[in-house]
Structure formats: C-alpha cells, structure tokens
C-alpha cells in the first residue's frame, strides 16, 4: 500500500507537515481559523529533531498493527481493503494501550479529549496533507 | 566602413540553369526563354546570367568583367591591373539599347594572366594563380570605390544588372553567345534597389552562383570567410556562397558533394543514425564547417567549368525542379520554366532537401564545340 515515507537526509525540520496535518484535521480546514479560533489538536505525525538530524515519523499502517491488537475497544481497525489503520474516536476509551504498543511512538494522546489521535492518511485528499506541505519533498507518499 | 558594417541585401527570386554534359554549346535564347517564364518571381530590380564556354578564343585567360560608376573608377581599376597582372586583351562588353534598362554602369572586360614570380613585378609572391586572382578581385572590390569586378573566371562570364532578366539579356546581347552551361536569375530584392552589382550571379574565379532565398546565417558566413581573406563587400548574402565554394572546394579540396553537405548538412538525428565512418565524416563537417552552413531558405545553382550543381536548404524552404533530356540537364524554380524550353523531358523530379543535383561534364567532352543548338519556340513569356 501507499505509505508516507520520510527522508531524513532532506528533512529540514520546518514542521510544516505538522501544521498541515492540524489544518487538514481541523473543522474549518483554514489555517488561521484552525490555529486561532479552534481548539488546538496535536498533529498526527511526530517531527523529531536531534542536532542536525530531523525527520518526521508517520503511522506505518503496519501489516500486523500492534495498535490494532492491543485496542480493547475495537477503536483501531485495519481496513482490509485499503490497508489503512483507522482510528474511530467515538469508540476510543483512552486506555493508551496503543500508545504503549506502537513501536514508532506515533500514536499521540489527546489528553483534553481522553482519546488518542493518529494518522488517517487524509481520506479526503489524494495526497496526504503533510506530504503536499513538505517544501523539500522529504515526505514521499508511495508504494515500496 | 568597418567590415561588420557591410549589410546583406535580401531577395527572393527565380532560377534557371542548363548544362550540356557533352559540351555542346547552346545559344542564349534557351535560358532567356526559361527565365522569362518565371517573370513573376522577380520585380525588375535584378537579372543576370552566367555562361560557360563563351570565350573559346581566350579560354586560358581569366576574363574579368568590370562595372564602374565612372571613368575615374575604371581608371583606378586599370591602374591597379597594370600593377598586378598582365592584360592580354580588353574590350567593352557589347550591349544593345533596351528601353527598360537605364543607367547602366561602364562595362568592360579584360582577359588577363597573373604576373608570375620572377616577372616584372609580383605583388604577392608565393600565391597560386587562382589565389592571386582572388586577391586581385578582393582588393579591387574592397578598395576601389565605384568599381566592381563581377566575373573573373576562365572561358566564362557573368552578365547582370538592374531589370528583368529578359531585358538584361537583350541589353547584353546574350542571344549572340553560346555556352554549354547557362544559369539565370530573376531577382526580387527588398531593400537595396537599383544596384547593378547586387544582381546575381555572384562569381569568383569560375564559380558562379545564383540563389533564391535568404542566407540567414550570412553574418557568420561572412565573418568566417574574413578569417580566410575574403571580403564580402557586395551588400548581398549570395556573395558568401561564391566565396565559400572557392574556399571549400578549391582551397580545402573537398569534393563538390561534401561542399554541398557543408551548406546543407544532415540533421544530427540523421547523423546519429549513420554508420560509424559516415558519422565521423559528417560530424567532422559540422564541427569544422559549422560557420559555412547556409541557414535559411535557399535554392541555389552554382556552376563552374566542370559542371552545374543545384541545391536546396536542408528543410527545402525554396523550390527546385530538375529534368533530363539526353545529355542536357535542366534545373529551375518551377517545372514550367523547364517545359518552356524542353516540353518533353525524359524525367522530371524535385530534388530532396539538402541533396545536391550534381551534373559534371562527361569525360572527353569538348567545350569548344561550335555547333549551337537551336532553342525551341518559347512558350511562356
């Protein structure tokens, strides 16, 4: 399946991917409203920086997703057709089991809501928002 | 004037040429009839002819045709010739009055030999005869104001001026000449009217050239020739072709067909598809003679004592038709110009872009054969 791959060698650590993610998952999908008027939600990727090294971590939508295995409420399911590991917030009870299980550490706790938040590969878009926002093509959306 | 300030003149035109490979001489009527058929390709501002085999009595002497605006200029030329060459014979170029031909310059012809080294005075020792004559022509044309050598080959001559070609022919009494190669030109110049020297053909030694089209690469062709001592002073693009022929064929020794490939080389994509040897050769031609490429639309006929060549530019932006009947080959801008004097050719064809039609004299052909063939009735004009 197509996944978001991060190129560490050309990630410039600008974090525009996070901003794009937040905007895409906002109510208004308008950057200024999303940041200034809506409740702020975390981005669904994690940009890591360590000295000159930076890269963005994205849900791998694993073949055998540990998050799906541990989810006690059935809130995380892997769509057998698309391969996308989806999170259904209504079902999430905030047990954080998936946070514990995800080896990429890319499922975040949204403590305000008591639920986790994770990448959904932007179902409304051809290209995930983070990928199109990356100014340096450090994020690739492709089949490997 | 700085050399770069010479400006080319541009023109569109009609052409015609005839060659008898066997050396049989043809009277001027044929070529006149043929070019007259293409009357509408010109505008009356230039016509001209080149004829080969017309001076059998002086066939080993360079025949200089000179036009001069005034006697001072003519005298200057004569003075220069006296210092540099020996004149064997000189005379007025015979003309007859024609109501359409006005203001002709003074026209003279001189049959000369270069002064050999060790003779009296030799201006430029070490040069071959041909190079010596080229030097003479270049010096006159560059340095003597108001005078111009417009023909300098052996046993051939160029005749040209301002007017429709049929009137120019009448003026020069070309019906009275006979030659085994004839070329003719009907000119449609666009920006320098009324300049006799600007009419075609252009010649150097026995190279003569008539041209339909425009040499867009003129600027570099001219600068290239200047590196080799040619001076393009005649305010027309066609002049460069004559000098390139002299440089590439006579001086560099390339065969005629390769000279044509300098003017209209194959495209790189064609070269890339050639076999190794040919690829090497054509790559070399383009690398070394890129400045000699004639770019822009052209159909040219060039003649020399040994033959007649027709050539198109490499994308065939100007027309050229050829036909054969017996020993005679015809080339013209339009088929009708050929049919006007040869209604039933054995073969008529349009040469491909960049592929020269080269007609050389048969071995053993005598170019002094006296019998003149009659021209057929002229249908066109």
């Amino acid at each position, binding site marked *: 399946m197509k996944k978001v*791959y*991060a190129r*560490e060698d050309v990630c410039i650590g600008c974090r525009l991917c996070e901003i794009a993610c937040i905007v895409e998952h906002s109510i208004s999908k308008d950057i200024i409203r999303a940041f200034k008027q809506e409740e702020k939600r975390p981005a669904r990727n*994690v940009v*890591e*920086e*360590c000295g000159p*090294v*930076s*890269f963005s*971590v994205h849900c*791998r939508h*694993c073949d*055998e997703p*540990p998050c*799906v*295995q*541990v989810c*006690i*409420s*059935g809130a995380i*399911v892997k769509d*057998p057709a698309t391969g996308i590991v989806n999170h259904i917030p*209504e*079902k999430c*009870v*905030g*047990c*954080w*089991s*998936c*946070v*514990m*299980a*995800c*080896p*990429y*550490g*890319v*499922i*975040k*706790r949204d403590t305000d809501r008591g639920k986790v938040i994770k990448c959904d590969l932007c179902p409304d878009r051809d290209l995930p928002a983070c990928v199109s926002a990356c100014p340096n093509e450090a994020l690739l959306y492709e089949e*490997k | 004037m700085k050399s770069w300030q010479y400006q080319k003149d541009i023109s569109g035109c009609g052409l015609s040429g005839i060659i008898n490979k066997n050396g049989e001489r043809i009277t001027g009527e044929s070529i006149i009839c043929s070019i007259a058929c293409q009357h509408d390709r010109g505008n009356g501002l230039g016509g001209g002819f080149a004829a080969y085999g017309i001076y059998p009595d002086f066939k080993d002497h360079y025949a200089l045709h000179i036009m001069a605006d005034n006697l001072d200029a003519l005298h200057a030329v004569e003075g220069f010739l006296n210092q540099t060459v020996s004149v064997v014979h000189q005379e007025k170029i015979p003309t007859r009055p024609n109501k359409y031909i006005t203001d002709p310059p003074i026209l003279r012809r001189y049959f000369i030999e270069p002064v050999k080294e060790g003779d009296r005075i030799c201006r430029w020792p070490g040069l071959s005869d041909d190079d010596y004559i080229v030097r003479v022509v270049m010096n006159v044309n560059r340095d003597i104001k108001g005078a111009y050598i417009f023909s300098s080959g052996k046993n051939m001559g160029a005749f040209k001026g301002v007017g429709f070609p049929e009137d120019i022919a009448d003026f020069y009494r070309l019906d009275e000449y006979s030659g085994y190669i004839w070329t003719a030109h009907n000119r449609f110049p666009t920006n320098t009217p009324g300049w006799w020297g600007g009419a075609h053909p252009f010649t150097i030694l026995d190279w003569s050239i008539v041209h339909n089209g425009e040499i867009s690469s003129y600027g570099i062709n001219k600068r290239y020739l200047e590196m080799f001592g040619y001076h393009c002073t005649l305010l027309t693009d066609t002049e460069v072709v004559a000098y390139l022929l002299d440089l590439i064929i006579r001086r560099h020794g390339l065969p005629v067909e390769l000279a044509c490939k300098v003017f209209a080389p194959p495209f790189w994509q064609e070269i890339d598809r050639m076999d190794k040897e040919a690829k090497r050769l054509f790559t070399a031609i383009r690398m070394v003679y890129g400045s000699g490429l004639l770019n822009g639309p052209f159909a040219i006929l060039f003649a020399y004592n040994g033959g007649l060549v027709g050539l198109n530019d490499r994308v065939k932006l100007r027309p050229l038709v050829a036909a054969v009947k017996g020993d005679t080959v015809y080339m013209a801008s339009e088929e009708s110009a050929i049919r006007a004097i040869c209604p039933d050719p054995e073969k008529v064809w349009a040469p491909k872009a960049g592929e020269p039609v080269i007609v050389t004299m048969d071995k053993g052909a005598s170019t002094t054969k006296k019998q003149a063939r009659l021209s057929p009735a002229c249908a066109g004009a």
Partner: protein
Amino acid sequence: MKYVIIGNGVAAIGAVEGIRQTDRQNPITIIAAEPYATYGRPLIANLLRGKIHEADLAYRPEVFYRDNKVTLLLGRTATKIDVAARRALLEDGDKVPYDKLLIATGGKPFIPPIQGKDGPDVYTFTTLDDAKKLDALVGKIKQIVVIGGGLIGLKAAESLHDRGLKVTVVELADRILSTAFDQTAGKIIGNRLAEVGIEVITESSVKEIVRKKDRVKGIILNDGHNRGCEAVVIAIGVIPDKDIVKGTGIETNRGIVVNDYLETSVAGIYAAGDVAEALDLLSGERRVVPIWPNAYNQGQYAGRNMAGARVTYKGGLPMNSIEFYGIPTMSMGMANPADAGYEVITRLIPEKNVYRKLVLKDGILVGAMLIGEVERAGILTGLIRNRVKVNSFKEELMKDTLSLSSLPGEIRAEWLNK
C-alpha cells in the same frame, strides 16, 4: 471447509480476521456462551463507571459477522468435542460439525476457598453480566470490598468508587498490581487511590465473608481486622476455562498446550487466548499470559493457520496500560525481573508521580515500567520486542523526550522504512 470457533472473545475475532486473510469463502460458526456479540471485555469497567453505554461495548461493528460470513450461535454453550466425528456438542444437544476447530473459551474467575464465599452478594467482574449485576447494586448499597488488587480488582474498585460506593481493596501482596508493578510504582498508585478515597489494604487477605441472614455484612481479614460491607467482589485472577477438552486427549497443562501454529496436540483443533498455553516471547517458554493483545494475536495466528497459511506465532509479550485517576501507567515485558541477573535503571520524580524503569539483560531491553509519563512508550515496546541492544543509548531512553532520534541511525532507518 467448515470453521468452528468455541468462544466469542477477542481471540475469536482475531481468528475470524485471520481466517479471512486467506479464506474469504468458507463458513465460520462461532459458539458463544454469552448472549452478546463480542464486546471489549475490559470496557465493562468503563460501563460500570458510567463513562460509556452498553452499545459502546461492541468490539466490531454490527455488520462484522455478516460481512465475514460468520454464523453466530449466541447463548449456546459447547460442552464437548467429538474428535473422531469432528463435531462440537452443545448443551442443548445440537451438534456442530467442523473441519477446523478453535477453542477460545478464555478464562474464568478464580474463587479462593474463603469462608462465606457462597451465597448472594458475592460477585466477580469479568463479564458484561457481572458488570450489569454490580451496576444494579449502585444506589442500593454503600460499602463494598474488592478482594484482589490486580488489574480487574482495581478497575472494579475505581468504577464503584466513582459511582459513590465506599470501596476497600484487599491485596495479598505487598503492593497493588504486583505482577506488573514494583513497590515504587505500587506506592504511587496506592497513594493516588488513597487520595481519592479508596482504601487499599496490602499484605492482607480475607479470612471470612461475614453474612447475616445469608446477606453479606462485612469481611474479616486474616489479621483480625474487619470491614463492614454489603457486597464483595472477588477479583483474584482468572484461570483457563479448559473444561471442554476433557476426554478429547488434547494435551493440557495449566492451559491447553499449543505448538508454534497454535494447534493443540489433536490435529485440526486449535486453541488461543486466555485458555491457551502459548509461546511467551521473552522467556521462550509456553505459558498462559491472559492479556488482551495476546488473545487477539493468538486468535489471528490460529485463524491464519486454520485457513491453511503456515505462519509461526512469534510469542506474546506481557504488557498493560492502565490509567488511575489521571496517572497513566504502563508496564511492558519483564518489568519485575525475577533475579539479580538484570540491569535495572530507574528514575523517580515523586512530586510529579513520575517513575520510569528500564530492565536490561545483557544490554538488551527486556522490560519497562512507566508511570506518569508515557508518551511514545511504544518505542520501548518495540525495542523489547525486537531485542535491540540498547546499552549505548539507554540514557536517552530514560528521558521523557524518548524518541526515535535516540536510536542509532541504522536502526532508525530500518525502523522507519517499514
């Protein structure tokens, strides 16, 4: 090909999903003793606590069974397996023939022999029905005692406390959550529970459940102390529910013994989940580790194998994530090493209720415990699971800024390019 699954817990769902990875056609029958479609069993605490409704319990959407061509026999109990005839016998006499059978009966609560345990007002807390019964008590009683300070017990305690009952938890060990936690962690959570008003009594056990007119009135601890209460929840633990294999010749130990393909000693019969004794990743031994992810995973591997794929179960990793009154806690792998042959690194910030502990064996991370700070904890789980040597960067792992950039470049590159 007919697939039959006895039990309708998460292992059964895993099995259906496993089978359907390979075989999209052949029928599956699930025999479910409970009258409910599969629900998120741990969620009964949330239900009891009043945070969710019964409808929210469904583990898979309603269409799941239909979409997967599953016949669900609800409220039907399988009692026997006729190995020779290849069929499961139901309590009501029905026979369900199978080609491949999965035993996923799970566990049942362990009830110790406490005096007074039999009779009304004593509850367990493992099923939805249990939760419903306790829910019905709310408002009717004031005090309740929970026996067992493990996961189930504490969740029951928390839920009941939130519903207004006075709750006392009695734990035999020196700390709550003794299997997953160490003393430090236990203390942090114990304090937190005490803070909200849940009484936790450790190093103690219930000697007797005191009844009056058959109804529970209190308990007496083995040290003689007592507590008044109107009900008791026994939440000591669960044991494999393996009754069904009696007389089949299927090898059992504590649970039903299975091989690397989750197949029992009888060909064509598989077992998965809390009833199975399957491979444990870290120890390399077979044992019963009754945790949710293991059950799902085993079910899924069993299902894939049943459908003909030959896939090796790589073993389960014990792990738990629970939050107590705003303090998230996690423990993964061997968080409480058995002996001194392990390197243990800890960091404690008592005022923030933050505690972090890593357990290494020969430089390899084998266990971790996180209290308070749990962000990106899965990275540690991943390191444990992948047996990564972490000595050179273990200090990085101790930080709350735990990140993949702490990992050496090569490991990281491989990690992220999956």
